[in-house]
């Protein structure tokens, strides 16, 4: 435990010396109260894809756990909240932190909002995009420990043939295929990984990771 505090203090000094880097995240709040466990609620959904909330939720456990945190089982938590009269992510996000802390014992809650999920149809190609933003909040006092965002996009249209009508038909066909959840759910896993691993702005490694307390 002392060793970990020493490493955390050393990290704080190191980051203080990096103030000139405009993209570096200010980890002061996190370092003051590093969490061991994270409760991930079903995300809010700003995209038109109905499947985004649970498509994204199923992608978030592995990156967080491999990052060294105890992650509460997302499906069990979702079922428990629904059983307690909270059928939507919006209502779940409104539950007071002290209640979440009392029921689960979580050190922190990750509030995720899905901004984009799935296909966007452009004239001659189709992209699949998953974009999220997230806030990690301490259950003890509501402190914002960390926030981040990630966006991953993959072009799924085939190459341009020079035949505009043909390309548009191909793009429309690809769009119809991509509207199924699988393409986006695969990309969601990449997005979740990027969210926590972003250089200089990612989530510090958690207690189960060999590099606990350091930033990716």
């Amino acid at each position, binding site marked *: 435990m002392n060793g970990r505090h020493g490493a955390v203090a050393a990290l704080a000094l190191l980051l203080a010396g990096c103030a000139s880097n405009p993209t570096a995240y200010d980890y002061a709040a996190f370092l003051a109260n590093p969490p061991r466990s994270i409760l991930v609620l079903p995300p809010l959904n700003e995209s038109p894809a109905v499947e985004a909330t649970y498509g994204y*939720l199923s992608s978030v456990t592995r990156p967080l756990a491999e990052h060294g945190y105890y992650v509460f*089982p997302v499906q069990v938590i979702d079922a428990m909240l629904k059983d307690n009269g909270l059928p939507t992510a919006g209502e779940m996000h409104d539950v007071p932190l002290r209640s979440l802390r009392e029921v689960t014992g979580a*050190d922190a809650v990750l509030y995720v909002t899905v901004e984009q999920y799935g296909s966007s149809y452009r004239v001659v190609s189709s992209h699949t995009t998953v974009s999220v933003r997230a806030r990690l909040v301490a259950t003890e006092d509501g402190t914002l420990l960390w926030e981040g965002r990630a966006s991953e996009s993959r072009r799924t249209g085939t190459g341009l043939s020079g035949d505009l009508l043909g390309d548009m038909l191909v793009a429309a066909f690809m769009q119809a295929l991509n509207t199924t959840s699988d393409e986006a759910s695969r990309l969601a*896993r990449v997005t979740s990984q990027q969210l926590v691993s972003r*250089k200089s702005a990612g989530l510090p490694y958690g207690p189960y990771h060999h590099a606990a307390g350091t930033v990716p």
Partner: protein
Amino acid sequence: MKGAAAAVAALMLTGCASSPPAMYAWGSYELMLYATYAAPGSVGIDEQIDLFENELSQAAHPMPPGWYAHLGYLYEQAGRLELARDAFLAEKADYPESTVLMDRFLQAMADAGPRIGDED
């Protein structure tokens, strides 16, 4: 600089470069989570339990956070309460951070008492 870093990260994430080995035995857990939501009812509780038990028997790494708790939840839904209890205790043993929640589930099962048709 940020764009290049993101591109490198993307390459690494797609597995073109070496990525660190996983700490936990993920198996098909993520896919099962996704399938349960994407196609609800397509895999019955007993089938899901079979899948979990099979993965446990083949695991070469520790089970991930929440894995035993999820299995316990499945067992409880199937009425297999003793196995549910064991799974919740396994979660607690591996991950002390789960203690508050696991104790809550264990207490709720104890309070509910035996039900008609309980197995195990």
